[in-house]
Structure formats: structure tokens, C-alpha cells
């Protein structure tokens, strides 16, 4: 019954979205405020209905209602509660419901918090947002309905893939979708502005927090996926340039560019046309990611390849929204008046450079991902585009970006002083040179360029510290004055510095772990010992164990360093009950120098086990860098909360005595 209620709510949500798409847009066209004002309750209602549908599905998963085909295919009664919940989005149909739920959540948020938006803009934004919902809810209802019953119901379900039964992966999709779908708001604002033919700095002030929010979640979502791959797939890889990964990385690159160009638009009223285009492209790339993954064109050789009707449907949605958006852009972009001028060496100039390099990088990933598909469909030739291609193309694009990055915050708007900026970066540059020298002397192995890579990361980190130090005038005023200045800094300035610091951390982590990874692959018998990166690892033996829905053989490894016990690692080989699939659980000891990573392999004929021991130096900086970016985004958002889109309140605050 509840399932039918959820199904019904989904159909109703479709109708409400249809209404929300048509009526407010018409109202905006004829300037009828009553027609425009229905957008708000419609958006809230649509969200409530989709939430109902989602909860209905979740209820079926939690109670293991196997009369629902989707639950029977993807869940199992012995699964722990967390994975029964995350199982809702662990499959195509359920994840689409989550997708539209988040879409509606963003629409509802605009309706609820957008009280100060101009009426026509708000009506148009919610109408465009609803049009996306119409397309995707229709997609769910016609091709991927999760509410279908089966009769007779099976005694138990097929289970969720064991490799997905993991806390990081349980929360990875919601974060990723919040990122993807969050960019729909930027898209809707761009389309609404084009329909209106009017766009100004206030528009950018509106779009930026939504973009920032989406970007934060996408950053963390990608990082979680990478983190999961690192510890779960059992060889310590964290990024594979896999098309599926690239599908999420492209919107991230475009979204990062959008964040920066919207900043120029907000402050200086420049780059308007470009920002609007970028907003359309960013969401289009999110849609393309959805298409690539759900159409089955990337995975066509595999058994679970989805129904081709779905691929065609998503392709149609993508073509409609991308093509429609770009067509509207082509028609209307000329009407947008451009604002402020600036010298090439200026804050604006540095942000333009950022956009040039990020969009080129995004285009590179795009070409690298789609070229093999295109070539195969045109000529039938099959080629592979793998990590070496991206190392050769994407890598070099990042070097100028990272070199230029610390300059940006030191340059003034309109006209900056590159020489003065360089002076302020002298400390960072000096530190980078020290790193090159130390790394070259101390580490005799690894690629020749690796010390420069490390130095680049350190330079970016030190540059953002210098940025803050300069703003608070560290060293030139007394410390209490420094503190006063620090607390007086706009939070967005702190956010910028922290985000850039996170980029530097990420670079250091990537370079260190790629270039200086240590590895031992050997057969160990109980009682034997191996040394890696200063750790002595003694293999004690293997003990069987049983979990809630799996059995495992856990190896016992005692780790010591210079005779002192450090930890005991228990990497395991697991077999899940349903579906009966093997996974490996790595034993990881995180240290400040890096991770010790032990994997238990197959038993050997002589009574030993294949054992892999890795030392991944500074690998955690990769994810900590992403976390720093997430926190930085949150700090910036907290700064903007009062001002953004709340001119009334901001004015009241401005009128009050200065803080």
C-alpha cells in the first residue's frame, strides 16, 4: 500500500512539476503576478511529493519488502540497516529517485529562501527547474520505475553488491548528486536571465552561493569515491581516469571555473556572457555524466548494461537542455550588456587565466573520455585513452594554473601590480626552492620532475598562507592588531585562502604518493617478517571470522618500528553470503608520513599467503585537501548568508552602527 502511495506521489509530482513549468513562465511573460506566484507553493509541493515517494521506497528497503521488484533485485534481509537504507540509491531506479528529490530540494530552497528575488526572475528560475524535473520524473515513470511489484514475491532478495556495502560509498552518491544537481540552479538562473534578457551583478550574487554549495558537495562526493577506491579495491589506487570518474570530474572543473568567473561578474560586472555560458555548460556536463553512465555506452559489454531505451531517453533530455540552453544563449547573449573593464594584470585578469586553463583542462578530459567512443562509432576502430594520455595533457595544463594561482589574491581589481605580488610571494617561492633541494638530495628515487611537483604544491600552500599573512599585516603590526585584523577579515577571504591551501595539499599528496610509493609483493608464511618504509611487519597467521552477512579470513600482522610495537593490522579476504562475492579488506595504518597498506592475497601451495605491502607517502593529503576545500566553501557561504539575496537585511545591517 505504501509503495502504491509512493508511486502515486511520483505521478502527482510529475503533474505538479508540469504545472510549475508552464504557469509561472506564462505569468512572467504576461507579467501577471498571480500566475507567477504559484511557482513557490508548487515547488514546495513538488518537493514534498518526491520526498513521500522517496520515503515510500526507503520504507520498502528497510522492511525488506521483496514484493517490490527493485527491492528484491537489490536488497537482502540480512543486510545491515545502513546498507538497506543506502541500497535505495545503490541501483539505477532508486538513484534516479534520489536525483529528482535533490533537484526538487534545490527548487524548494529557491522558493523558500528567494523572497527577495525579482518576481519574474524567480518565476522563470522555478519554471526552468520544474522543466528538468518534468523530464527526469517522466524518465523514471516510463523507463525506470522503482515501484513495480512482482508476484509472487521471492523469499529473499538478490542483495547489494558487497563492494558497495561500505560507509563511504553509502554517502558518496547523495553528495555527488547534490553537486551535480546543484548546478541545475545555476543553469536555471542562466536560462531565466536569458529569457528575461536582463542580467546584472545581483544575478551573480544570487548564483554564486548555489554554485558554491553544489561545488562543495561535488568536491567531497568525488573525494569520497576516490577514498573508497583507495581502501576498498585493494591496490591503493585513488584515481584511474576512468570514464565514469571523468564524468564527475568534468562538471567539477567547469563548476570551479564558474565559481571564479561569477566572482568577476559579481564584483566588476564583467564576464557576464561567459558566466552565463559556463553556467549552461556546467549543468550540461552533469547531464552528460548522467547519460554516459546510464545509457550503457560505457559498459555495453557487461551483463548489467541497461535497457537501450533509457540511453535514448537520457540522450534526448541532454540534447534538449544543452541544445535548448545553447540556442537560447546564441539568440540572446548579444543583448547582455558587458560591464567593467580591466587591465590584463589584475584580479580579473588572473581569474580569466584561471578560466582559460580550467576550461581547457575540462575540454581535455572531455575529448579524452569521448574520443574513443566517437572514433569507434565513426570508423569502428577501437583505441584506448588511459592514464598516460591524461598525464601528458592534463598534467601540463595544471602547472601554469598552480603557478599563477597564488598571484590572483594579491592582485587588485582593475589594475594589479605583478611585481608587488611577486615580492609578497617571495617567501613561498623560497620555500618551494628549499623543497626542491631537500627532495632531490634526500630522495634518490622517483621521477626527476617529482621534487618540482612537490615544490609546486608547497608553493601554493605557502602562497595562500602569505595571502592571509599579508591581509592581517603579519610582521608589520603588533600581534593583537594582527588578531584584530584576522577576526575582521571577510570570511570569504579566509575561505579563498583555505580552499587554495587545500589545492596545494592535494598536489603534494598526489605527487608524493605517485612518485615515492613503496611496494613489496611476496609470499609470507606465518612467523615471517618484512620491512617496508621503516616498518617491520610480522605475519602471525590467518584466522577465520564471521560478520553479519559475510565470512572472512583475516590475516594478523604486527607492525613495529625500531622495535616498538605500532599497531596490529588485520587485512581480510571476505566472502559475502548474498550475493556470494569476494572482496578484500585492506589493513591500513595511517601515519603522518603516509599510510602503511597491507593486503592479504591468495593462499599458496606451501602454506604461505600472497601478501602485498605498500607505503603510500602523504596520500591522505589528497582527501584532506578536498576536505579543506569543502570547509573553505562552508566558511565562504557562512559569510555570504546575510548579504546574498537579502538586500533588505543587508541594508538594515549597514544602517546599524559599524561592528
Amino acid at each position, binding site marked *: 500500500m505504501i509503495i502504491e502511495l509512493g508511486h502515486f506521489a511520483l505521478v502527482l509530482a510529475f503533474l505538479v512539476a508540469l504545472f510549475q513549468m508552464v504557469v509561472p513562465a506564462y505569468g512572467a511573460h504576461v507579467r501577471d503576478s498571480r500566475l507567477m506566484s504559484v511557482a513557490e507553493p508548487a515547488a514546495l509541493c513538488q518537493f514534498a511529493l518526491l520526498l513521500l515517494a522517496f520515503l515510500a521506497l526507503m520504507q520498502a528497503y528497510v522492511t525488506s519488502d521483496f514484493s517490490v521488484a527493485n527491492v528484491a533485485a537489490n536488497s537482502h534481509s540480512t543486510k545491515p540497516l545502513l546498507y538497506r537504507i543506502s541500497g535505495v540509491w545503490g541501483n539505477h531506479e532508486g538513484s534516479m529517485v534520489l536525483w529528482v528529490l535533490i533537484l526538487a530540494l534545490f527548487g524548494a530552497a529557491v522558493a523558500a529562501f528567494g523572497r527577495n528575488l525579482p518576481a519574474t526572475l524567480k518565476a522563470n528560475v522555478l519554471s526552468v527547474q520544474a522543466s528538468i524535473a518534468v523530464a527526469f520524473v517522466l524518465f523514471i515513470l516510463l523507463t525506470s520505475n522503482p515501484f513495480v511489484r512482482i508476484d509472487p514475491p521471492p523469499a529473499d532478495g538478490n542483495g547489494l553488491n558487497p563492494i558497495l556495502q561500505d560507509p563511504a560509498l553509502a554517502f558518496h552518491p547523495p553528495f555527488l548528486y547534490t553537486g551535480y544537481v546543484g548546478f541545475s540552479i545555476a543553469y536555471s538562473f542562466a536560462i531565466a536571465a536569458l529569457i528575461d534578457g536582463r542580467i546584472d551583478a545581483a544575478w551573480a550574487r544570487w548564483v554564486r552561493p548555489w554554485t558554491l554549495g553544489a561545488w562543495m558537495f561535488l568536491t567531497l562526493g568525488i573525494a569520497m569515491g576516490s577514498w573508497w577506491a583507495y581502501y576498498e579495491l585493494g591496490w591503493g589506487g585513488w584515481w584511474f581516469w*576512468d570514464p565514469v570518474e571523468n564524468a564527475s570530474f568534468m562538471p567539477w572543473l567547469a563548476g570551479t571555473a564558474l565559481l571564479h568567473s561569477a566572482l568577476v561578474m559579481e564584483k566588476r560586472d564583467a564576464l557576464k556572457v561567459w558566466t552565463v555560458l559556463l553556467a549552461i555548460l556546467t549543468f550540461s556536463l552533469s547531464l552528460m555524466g548522467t547519460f554516459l553512465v546510464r545509457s550503457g555506452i560505457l559498459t555495453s559489454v557487461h551483463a548489467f548494461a541497461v535497457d537501450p531505451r533509457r540511453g535514448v531517453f537520457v540522450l534526448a533530455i541532454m540534447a534538449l537542455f544543452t541544445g535548448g540552453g545553447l540556442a537560447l544563449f546564441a539568440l540572446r547573449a548579444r543583448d547582455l550588456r558587458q560591464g567593467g573593464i580591466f587591465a590584463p594584470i589584475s584580479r580579473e585578469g588572473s581569474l580569466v587565466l584561471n578560466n582559460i586553463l580550467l576550461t581547457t583542462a575540462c575540454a581535455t578530459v572531455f575529448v579524452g573520455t569521448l574520443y574513443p567512443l566517437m572514433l569507434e562509432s565513426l570508423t569502428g576502430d577501437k583505441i584506448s585513452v588511459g592514464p598516460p594520455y591524461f598525464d601528458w595533457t592534463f598534467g601540463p595544463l595544471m602547472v601554469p594554473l598552480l603557478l599563477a594561482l597564488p598571484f590572483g589574491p594579491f592582485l587588485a581589481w582593475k589594475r594589479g601590480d605583478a611585481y608587488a605580488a611577486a615580492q609578497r610571494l617571495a617567501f613561498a617561492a623560497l620555500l618551494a626552492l628549499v623543497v626542491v633541494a631537500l627532495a632531490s638530495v634526500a630522495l634518490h628515487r622517483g621521477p626527476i620532475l617529482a621534487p618540482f611537483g612537490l615544490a609546486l604544491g608547497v608553493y601554493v600552500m605557502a602562497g595562500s598562507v602569505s595571502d592571509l599573512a599579508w591581509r592581517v599585516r603579519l610582521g608589520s603590526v603588533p600581534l593583537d592588531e594582527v588578531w584584530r585584523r584576522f577576526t575582521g577579515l571577510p570570511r570569504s577571504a579566509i575561505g579563498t585562502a583555505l580552499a587554495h591551501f587545500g589545492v596545494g595539499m592535494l598536489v603534494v599528496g598526489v605527487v608524493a604518493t605517485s612518485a615515492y610509493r613503496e611496494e613489496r609483493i611476496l609470499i609470507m608464511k606465518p612467523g615471517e617478517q618484512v620491512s617496508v618504509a621503516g616498518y617491520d611487519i610480522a605475519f602471525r597467521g590467518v584466522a577465520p571470522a564471521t560478520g553479519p552477512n559475510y565470512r572472512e579470513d583475516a590475516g594478523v600482522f604486527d607492525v613495529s618500528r625500531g622495535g616498538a610495537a605500532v599497531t596490529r593490522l588485520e587485512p581480510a579476504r571476505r566472502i559475502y553470503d548474498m550475493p556470494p562475492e569476494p572482496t*578484500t579488506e585492506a589493513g591500513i595504518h595511517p601515519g603522518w608520513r603516509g599510510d602503511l597498506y597491507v593486503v592479504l592475497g591468495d593462499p599458496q601451495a606451501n602454506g604461505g599467503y600472497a601478501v602485498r605491502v605498500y607505503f603510500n607517502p602523504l596520500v591522505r593529503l589528497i582527501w584532506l585537501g578536498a576536505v579543506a576545500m569543502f570547509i573553505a566553501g562552508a566558511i565562504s557561504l557562512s559569510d555570504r548568508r546575510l548579504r546574498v539575496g537579502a538586500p533588505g537585511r543587508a541594508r538594515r545591517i549597514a544602517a546599524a552602527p559599524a561592528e
Partner: protein
Amino acid sequence: MRRALSALVLVLLLLAGAGAAMAVEPDEILPDPALEARARHISSGLRCLVCQNQSIDDSNAPLARDLRLLVRERLKAGDSDAQVTRFIEDRYGEFVLLSPPLSWRTLLLWIAPLIALLIAVWTSVRAWRRRQAQAVRAGGAAPLSAEEEKRLAAILAERETPTPPDSRPQ
């Protein structure tokens, strides 16, 4: 679900493969570390043909193991790195190379980043010039008169301590 789907692929491959074993096995490793290092380097550029964008160095599929052994055999026989790669390519086709060699078919792939960069730079410069010209025409960037210069100097002199340009909220 992108990541999850790729995981699904991996799981299917695990099933297709030989249980929960991973990548290079201890029995494959060559006694000569230099030769082994070369083998690893070559392997990381060869695609596991039954996997999704995985190198044979990372994959546990039986085919990947066969290829790894083949690479090591050729190295032991005294082949150079290029010869080994060539040998594998001749047997399995260009698809096996993770870094597609430059040819007329892949020319566009390899120069695409450069083209994209040039387009981006060219568009930016053109837009900037046009904007600059417009502003001059509109009189926005007209030089200051002597009177204005004097007033500007007076205003600047009034400010005792110049604050950093960005101490205001951005």
C-alpha cells in the same frame, strides 16, 4: 552512482577473474629488480582487455596475468621496452595501448588540448580588446583632466595609511 556502477563493473570482473586475488602475484615477479621495474612500467601502459580502463598492472583478470607473464617473458628474452610493447600490440591491436600512438586517427585527440587552449586564449583576448575599445568609445577610460588629477592627488594624500586593496569584503 557513477562510482558505484564502475564498482559493479569491477565486481563482475572479480567474478570473471580468479577470486579475490589482485594484480601482480608474487610468483610473477622477476628476480632482477631492474627488469621487474621495466616490466611494471610497461604493464602500467597496457590495457587489460576484458576490464574497463584498467591496466594489466592493476587488474586481477586471468588475461591480465597472462599478459604480465608475456611481458616478463619477452623482457627475459632480451627485448627492449619498445619491442615488448610492439609485440603485445601486434597480437592484441592498438586497443591494448592505454596511450594511443600518434596517427591520423588520433591526431585530433592529441592536439585537442592545444586547440582548446588556443581557442580559449584567442576568444579571451578578442573579447577583452572589444570591451576595451567599447569603453574608450563610451568615454569610460578617457584620461583625467589636470583639475581631476589635482583632486585625485589631494584625496590620495588624505589617506595616511594605505590599506591593502582587498581588506574590503569580496
